[in-house]
């Protein structure tokens, strides 16, 4: 049984403008998204701004209610739990945020920030709590913990703050962690440090990650499987190596083609796919396949009929009329 399952998750945000007649407008942030995550794996969720990946991450943690659909954790629907069970579930699923400057309360000390999860879910005596916090800090590479425990966030660098954010997420030894762009705001030389830390922690604590990012190079490096999103829909899911070598969906192909390589010979020799136009509005997404308006390989059918997500190989699915089932 997969650890996490998204089942037809849909989230529409109503716009504030109210019309007297006709339906109020909504932002179709996430539309009928289904996938599963096995225990111990790192699933990458990639897409550009507005594709719905962050919203999907938050839905999986029950940080908001879906408009339709549901999600399960160890087989149980997380939206159908009683208050007490939901509270206990929170300790098993956590989040690491993107912005190491915005995600830590600047007026609290590291001690206060890291004590919070314990006080809510596993209160203990002060000395034990302090020992737990120090151990947590050392687990994320801020050693010796005693040096850092009474400092405020502004006294740390971006990379160190992100380590504190990771420590906070791991305090209660969760099974599932959503990492929402955890290294995008960090310098290049620090990114590798943090990714390495996340991988080591995954092995040590048997974590399962949903790794949300727009950066394909990061995905290639740390994810075992990848799901690509466009305008609220999943367009392709595959094991990492297969996704990058086969790039079946035209959008996946365009994304890979658009990502520059840190190698002048290779990157200049490549054939580039440059998409025309801008991203359509999620308030009124195109009919049929949402990508058809920018797709270099569109057919007539694409503007009328939405392609379903179909299996095309070993754990590989694509939502595209170019790949009817089995081919």
């Amino acid at each position, binding site marked *: 049984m997969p650890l996490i399952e998204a089942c037809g998750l849909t989230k529409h945000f109503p716009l504030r403008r109210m019309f007297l007649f006709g339906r109020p407008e909504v932002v179709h942030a996430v539309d009928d998204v289904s996938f599963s995550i096995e225990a111990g794996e790192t699933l990458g969720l990639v897409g*550009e701004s507005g594709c719905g990946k962050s919203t999907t991450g938050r839905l999986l943690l029950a940080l908001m209610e879906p408009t339709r659909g549901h999600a399960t954790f160890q087989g149980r629907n997380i939206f159908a739990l009683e208050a007490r069970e939901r509270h206990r579930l929170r300790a098993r699923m956590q989040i690491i945020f993107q912005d190491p400057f915005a995600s830590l309360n600047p007026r609290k000390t590291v001690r206060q920030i890291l004590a919070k999860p314990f006080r809510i879910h596993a209160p203990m005596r002060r000395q034990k709590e302090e020992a737990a916090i120090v151990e947590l800090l050392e687990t994320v590479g801020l050693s010796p913990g005693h040096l850092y425990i009474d400092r405020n966030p502004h006294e740390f660098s971006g990379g160190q703050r992100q380590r504190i954010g990771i420590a906070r997420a791991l305090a209660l030894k969760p099974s599932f962690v959503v990492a929402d762009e955890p290294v995008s705001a960090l*310098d290049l030389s620090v*990114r590798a440090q943090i990714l*390495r830390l996340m991988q080591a922690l995954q092995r040590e604590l048997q974590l399962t990650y949903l790794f949300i990012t727009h950066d394909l190079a990061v*995905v290639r*490096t740390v994810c075992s499987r990848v799901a690509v999103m466009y305008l609220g829909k999943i367009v392709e899911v595959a094991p990492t190596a297969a996704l990058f070598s086969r790039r079946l969906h035209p959008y996946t192909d365009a994304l*890979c083609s658009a990502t*520059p390589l840190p190698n002048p010979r290779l*990157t200049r020799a490549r054939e580039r796919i440059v*998409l025309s136009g801008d991203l359509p509005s999620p308030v009124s997404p195109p009919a049929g396949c949402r990508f058809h308006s920018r797709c270099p390989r569109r057919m007539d059918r694409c503007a009328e009929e939405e392609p379903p997500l179909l299996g095309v190989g070993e754990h590989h699915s694509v939502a595209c009329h170019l790949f009817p089932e089995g081919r």
Partner: protein
Amino acid sequence: MSSALLDIRGLKVQFRTSRGVVRAVDGIDLAVQPREIIGLVGESGCGKSTVAHAITRLIPSPPGQIVAGEIRYRGSDLLRVPERDMRSQIRGREIAMVFQDPMTYLNPVMKVRTQITETLRLHQQLNAEEAGRKALEILAHVQIPSPERVAKSYPHELSGGMRQRVLIGIAIACTPTLLIADEPTTALDVTVQAQILRLLKDLVRDLQSSLLLITHDLGIVAELCDRVYVIYCGRVVEHGDVYRIFESPRHPYTIGLLRSALSIEEMRDELVAIEGQVPNLMAPPPGCAFHPRCGFCMDICRREAPGPVPAAEGHEVWCFRELP
């Protein structure tokens, strides 16, 4: 004496703060030849943006100050040019800048057309009608699909990619000889970034201008640049032709950056990182600024700052390991 379009020698820029003096740029030499694309690469706080702002004398003063050096543009030192001439002849006309976040640099209460005609009328003395027509031509030139509609719009009504094209349009309106782009695509999605980078490359080629591209993204450098300067702690640590820098880097910082750079083409078995963090520019380490993080650190590195050593034709490294 060089035939370089832009020749910076010994540039030092400092910022005085209540907690001390930040040595943002600490002795940089840099040259841009005609029709060349130069990459200035480094991480946040390394001083690369400060160099860009110093060239057009846009450093806020106080607290900033250019304390040493010369910036020779076509032979004349821009640091000695009167402000009046900087405004009328240099900025927007000879040298134009494209910044990172178009929303911050476009006037939110002015229509796009007015923002372009403003620069045209200032530098080319066109009347309102001529400037209006030229503005539409410029919008078409930067590949905006419906120039009339965009000309009548306000920046907030446009997408990020469109705004950046408008900013580029304003920059090239008076056909500058040197275009400085400071992280022009950082705020954009990767598919839009590909469009904008291609646009910049085409424009610069058509105008026969040079481009000084400031970025932390090694992929962008590999994609566009002819030559690269690697900056660390306000100093150049290595510079050379793009192929040499990527294929035969000599400075430990450059080597570390390249090894920790992630790519969609490679599956890494092991993630390599540069240990430690960027030092505080108010109290940089003595000697070579990189020495605390350097795996090859020797005694001399802790005491003295290395000078440039040629590694090959057009390739210099600031490192004691490099034997002349």
